[in-house]
């Protein structure tokens, strides 16, 4: 067990090293110079040179990377070139909570809507319900989140005035207002995800409902809802949870667009600005954080298997 955990940690560190190296070199390979972008139109060679030196960008790339890495692991995440604020504060204390709130709300919403629809679809296989849900799921998956966000804003926020158009209110300061602001962004971000959950739930449940233990449960005279929701759904938990872990990357990717449309100050919006402005240290911090998030969530998914399936528990 200990060896397994140690192996896991080493594996995580190696993955993070590869991710940091890859993102750093990709950003360096991309044309575009942060100094020029910061200086805008009005600049002279002297101001260029002095700014380049101040930012440490006149040193060899490898030195820049190793310096960054050394500082990063010792907790010094550096200062943003543009805003001159502490990157750790900006990324971890300010942007991360926003993205985590958005992601968590979207996952909860997707599970709350996707699982029942998938169950309905499986139970009423090949019926009008099944077709209806399939059409809904496909449309949700196919709809670009950017466009959907704008449609939802115009329909629900502008025309009906039911929800706020934009902005973030921290749920830990004011839970009701926070959630109220989160409805449209979470709905936008979760539509793709709802479609995926519906399809996985349906496919797994159709298979499970053919199993002998379901037939046995029915034979014992257990009510239909109990057969489906207790004996059936418990057995599809694993594929659904695995899918959520793997799709987290997609959700974080969708968060970039959703945060832009709804003007939420999260990691997605921060990363977009940082990439366009070639803010290497800020991009690195964002990438490392999302990579860590992805790894940690998938680790939790792995660890949850024994809880979901007693056969996997150590004896």
């Amino acid at each position: 067990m200990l060896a397994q955990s140690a192996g896991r940690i080493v594996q995580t560190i190696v993955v993070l090293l590869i991710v940091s190296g890859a993102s750093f070199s990709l950003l360096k390979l991309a044309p575009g110079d942060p100094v020029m972008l910061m200086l805008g139109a009005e600049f002279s060679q002297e101001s260029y040179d002095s700014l380049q030196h101040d930012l440490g960008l006149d040193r060899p790339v490898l030195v820049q990377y190793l310096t960054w890495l050394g500082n990063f692991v010792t907790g010094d995440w550096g200062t943003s070139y543009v805003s001159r604020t502490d990157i750790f504060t900006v990324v971890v204390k300010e942007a991360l909570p926003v993205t985590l709130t958005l992601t968590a709300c979207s996952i909860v919403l997707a599970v709350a809507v996707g699982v029942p629809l998938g169950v309905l679809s499986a139970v009423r296989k090949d019926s009008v319900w099944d077709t209806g849900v399939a059409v809904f799921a496909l449309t949700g998956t196919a709809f670009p989140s950017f466009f959907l966000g704008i449609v939802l804003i115009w329909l629900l926020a502008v025309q009906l005035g039911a929800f706020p158009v934009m902005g973030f209110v921290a749920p830990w300061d004011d839970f009701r207002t926070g959630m109220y602001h989160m409805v449209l962004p979470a709905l936008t971000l979760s539509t793709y995800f709802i479609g995926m959950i519906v399809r996985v739930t349906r496919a797994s449940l159709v298979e499970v409902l053919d199993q002998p233990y379901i037939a046995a449960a029915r034979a014992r005279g257990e009510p239909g809802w109990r057969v489906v929701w207790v004996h059936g759904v418990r057995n599809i938990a694993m594929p659904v949870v695995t899918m959520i872990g793997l799709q987290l990357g997609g959700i974080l990717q969708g968060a970039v667009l959703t945060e832009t449309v709804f003007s939420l100050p999260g990691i997605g919006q921060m990363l977009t600005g940082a990439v366009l402005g070639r803010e290497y240290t800020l991009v690195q911090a964002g990438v490392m954080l999302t990579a860590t998030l992805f790894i940690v969530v998938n680790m939790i998914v792995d660890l949850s298997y024994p809880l979901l399936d007693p056969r996997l528990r150590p004896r």
Partner: protein
Amino acid sequence: MTNKLPTGIDHRKILEERISAEIGRRTLLKGIGAGLLAAGGAGMLPDLARAQQNGHIRIAAIKHIDTLDPHFTFFLSAVQVINNIHNGLLKVTYDGETVRFEPDLAKSWDLEDDRTHLFRLHEGVKFHDGTPCDAEAVKFSLMRVKSGTPASPHAWKLALLNEIEIVDPLTVRLHFAEPYAFLPVALTGSTGRAGTIVSPAAVEKYGMDYGRNPVGTGPFKFVSWRDNDSIELEANPDYFEAGMPKLQRASFVLIDEPSTAVAALVSGQIDGMTDCPMQLVAQVKNIPTVTLYGEIEGNYTYIGMNNRSAPFDDVNLRRAVAFAINRDTLLKQAYFGLAQQAYSPISPPMSGYYDPNIGNTNRGQRFDLAKAKEFRAKAANQGEIEVTYIMAERGPVGTRVAQTVAPMLSEIGIKVKLELLEPAAWVQRMKDGNFQMLDFDWVADLDPEETIFPEFKTGGSWNYWGWSNPEFDRLCTEAQTIIDVPTRAALYHKAEDILMDEAPIAMLAHMPVYKVFSKKVQGFNYIPCDLVDLHGVSLA
């Protein structure tokens, strides 16, 4: 003793007349002792008629804001906020017809001779940190721009400033090496930025982080700045101008996506937008609850050609391009019919320099296909020429100009290959001179000097085109030290004529810049240099 230049022009008299005309007769006290003028008077003194502040305005800030340090910002989007926190020695005003440069923190501005300026400051003005805004603070701020470390990008605007003499705690005398015509613009707190007065104590305290903790004398105090979220300001109850500010709080909500901002405006979540892109103007005009402000501002757009190498090292080919572009079509397709044709760089708000009749003269560039073909026939390369035109989704028009212009050039045997780049890569290619053709938009301070000289002088750092003409350089250099507007304008017109004839660039348009406010917002004073002036704004 009045100094006279060899040209025989009495600069002092001219400036005296110009300033007096600008300040207006009501507030002018002329010819008393050495005093040239004293603007304001009792109404400007502090402790009189304090404003009652109430209301919280929320304005969407669409464009990127780099820093709130007036001496280091590169963007007018930052000046939109800075201008409400700080004052300049001078300020830009607009009455709907004429742009003027008037005293702001200065109570009076006297010209002792054509290169010595005396500024008397308002009494009792304090920075938001409680320290006094006096002659020492003015000297500190000007020196910070002129020779501070790190170097301010606006240092060149004060290069001719030889000495700052503190006459008494509220009086400074500026000695210049030459008569300096750009001075009124340079000393403003808004477009020129070099004349913005900052708190020395705050600069000392925050150092390079001043841009995140600005402390000025303006109607609003800085409260906080959260990335991708908002910049918060609150009223300065001790503001020195009577009756201002009227608002208790002001938030600049940072929204990247303009359509989201319009939706938030319609639903009442925000009260205004610092910028309304041209593609949204038609939609915004149909919203009954908002007012759109906007006029043609101090800018020009153009096709830039790389003069250093073939094919555009050939003046006749460049001239052919300049005459081959159908501006009417372009204005409709790329600018939604909202921009104005530009015949030359000097833009409409540059009162005294812009000729509103230029379209009816033979000055400048325009569409004339016959003439374009004539020049094309004189070009060295008579075969079909293939050029690469780099474009990016950036600026107010994105790739629309490139897509509209490309087919027009095929009429004169130039086959344009459009290359789409990511904005950062595009900027790098332009600044490296690694391009053949591109389109660009240039926003200038409201003076012809900054409009054409740094951009086109030989070896100038913004001369991306590699064009050079000694006569152009000479005319612009001479104009720098001429204060008489018609004389100076004549020099710039001659310089422009050379520029337009040799066509390193093909002029396209002067663009309007729009602001939108809810009808609840009252007292917004539109100034055509992209300012968001909240001094007198209130909420109904």
